[in-house]
């Protein structure tokens, strides 16, 4: 049924790239989201303002625009920075070049970090204050409070939002092919141009995405059940 005309390995490699890209972006945005949420809830007015500006701007500007902006500008800034380093130290030739994969991870992580910030902020606030006070009264250090008390309870509230964000990230990786990454879409485009069957190969790319979103939905549902241990649901 599936006649891939020899493009099978290419499409498979593209799928792997897409999955890697989304998982790494998830990791980056997860960390940025935790930091951003802590900044938004911190006592320092400067940090709060910074985090608010970050989330407002990122969520108000389309991701594709930000992606092109960061992808093209970051390389120029890096070149300027390395040129400057060259000028102070003549003996070594500094050079950093960004491949589409790295910039894709940085950009997607940076963009979706803003969405994660909002998700985590809500989840942090949902954990009762008394829990944290009790932990501190036991003499736990701030990081231990975070690891043992805040994080496990916060995840319970954050998971539905996280699941949503993950689906959006997975679908946003499609945009990275626009800045030249050879992901599943590029592979499907090549295959389509080579065989004049664009519709067929694009549909296969769509099916792969559908499979990825469906499978990850199942995994997230299991995770939700795990973190909801100890919560009694109302029986209607």
């Amino acid at each position: 049924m599936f006649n891939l005309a020899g493009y099978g390995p290419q499409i498979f490699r593209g799928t792997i790239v897409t999955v890697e890209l989304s998982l790494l972006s998830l990791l980056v945005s997860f960390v940025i989201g935790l930091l951003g949420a802590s900044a938004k809830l911190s006592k320092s007015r400067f940090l709060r303002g910074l985090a608010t500006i970050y989330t407002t701007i990122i969520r108000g500007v389309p991701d594709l625009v930000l992606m092109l902006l960061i992808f093209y500008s970051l390389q120029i800034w890096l070149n300027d920075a390395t040129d400057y380093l060259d000028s102070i130290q003549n003996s070594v030739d500094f050079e950093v070049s960004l491949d589409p994969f790295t910039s894709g991870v940085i950009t997607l992580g940076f963009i979706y970090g803003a969405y994660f910030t909002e998700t985590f902020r809500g989840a942090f606030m949902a954990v009762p204050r008394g829990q944290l006070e009790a932990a501190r009264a036991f003499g736990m250090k701030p990081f231990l409070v975070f690891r043992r008390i805040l994080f496990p309870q916060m995840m319970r509230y954050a998971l539905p939002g996280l699941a949503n964000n993950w689906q959006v990230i997975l679908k946003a990786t499609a945009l990275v092919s626009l800045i030249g990454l050879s992901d599943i879409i590029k592979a499907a485009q090549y295959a389509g141009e080579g065989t004049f069957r664009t519709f067929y190969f694009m549909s296969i790319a769509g099916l792969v995405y559908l499979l990825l979103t469906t499978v990850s939905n199942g995994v997230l549902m299991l995770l939700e059940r795990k973190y909801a241990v100890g919560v009694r649901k109302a029986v209607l």
Partner: protein
Amino acid sequence: MIYIIQNFGREFLYTDGYHITGLAMTLWLLLISCSVGFCIALPLAILRNARNPLIWGPVWLYTFVIRGTPLYVQLLIIYTGFYGLDFVRNSPPLAAFFKQGIDCTLLAFALNTGAYTTEIFAGAIRDTSFGEVEAARSLGMSQFTLYRRIIIPSALRRALPVYSNEVILMLHATTLAFTATVPDLLKVANDAYAATYNPFASFATVALIYLCISFTLIFAFRKAEGHFLAFLKP
């Protein structure tokens, strides 16, 4: 940046002298895709809540497929895929339709936002309180009147906050139009970048314009929420 605004200002706002471009094109894409999407979504949302699986099944499949795949893939299937199919190329009206970048873009956008909006409205209809429907039935309303007078108005109001989110996301999604050669804001920014080799100034300008549209939309929706959701206020 000033050079870009001087040279591409008119293109960014409404025209390059021959076509509608930039802001006007982006808003046109947003308006058409959201209105068509709304018209698709309303009947489908009602069917989505039907009891018969033969009725809600196809609607579920439509929203599942559209929401599970990236819009870019859908656009590529419609724009580059359909024109390669024999039956499309052999029928002049279809060929004429799928040859035009803007037609394909609008079709893809409308189908996409239609699926998300269907789920939003279906959720709101599902959450209609039991008492409202019971009261309407006890007054002897027919099924049609019940939907027209009670369920739809109340569901649309309650869906407004989520729907406003979807419209903002759709605004962000219109940036994909430039891949189908539609001269929207991002296409103009790309041209400005190609002409000046100054990526930051070109894309930052367009990012600011998008930011302004987003804020205007958010403000307008908040006003609308204040008006239409006044009955839910404490």
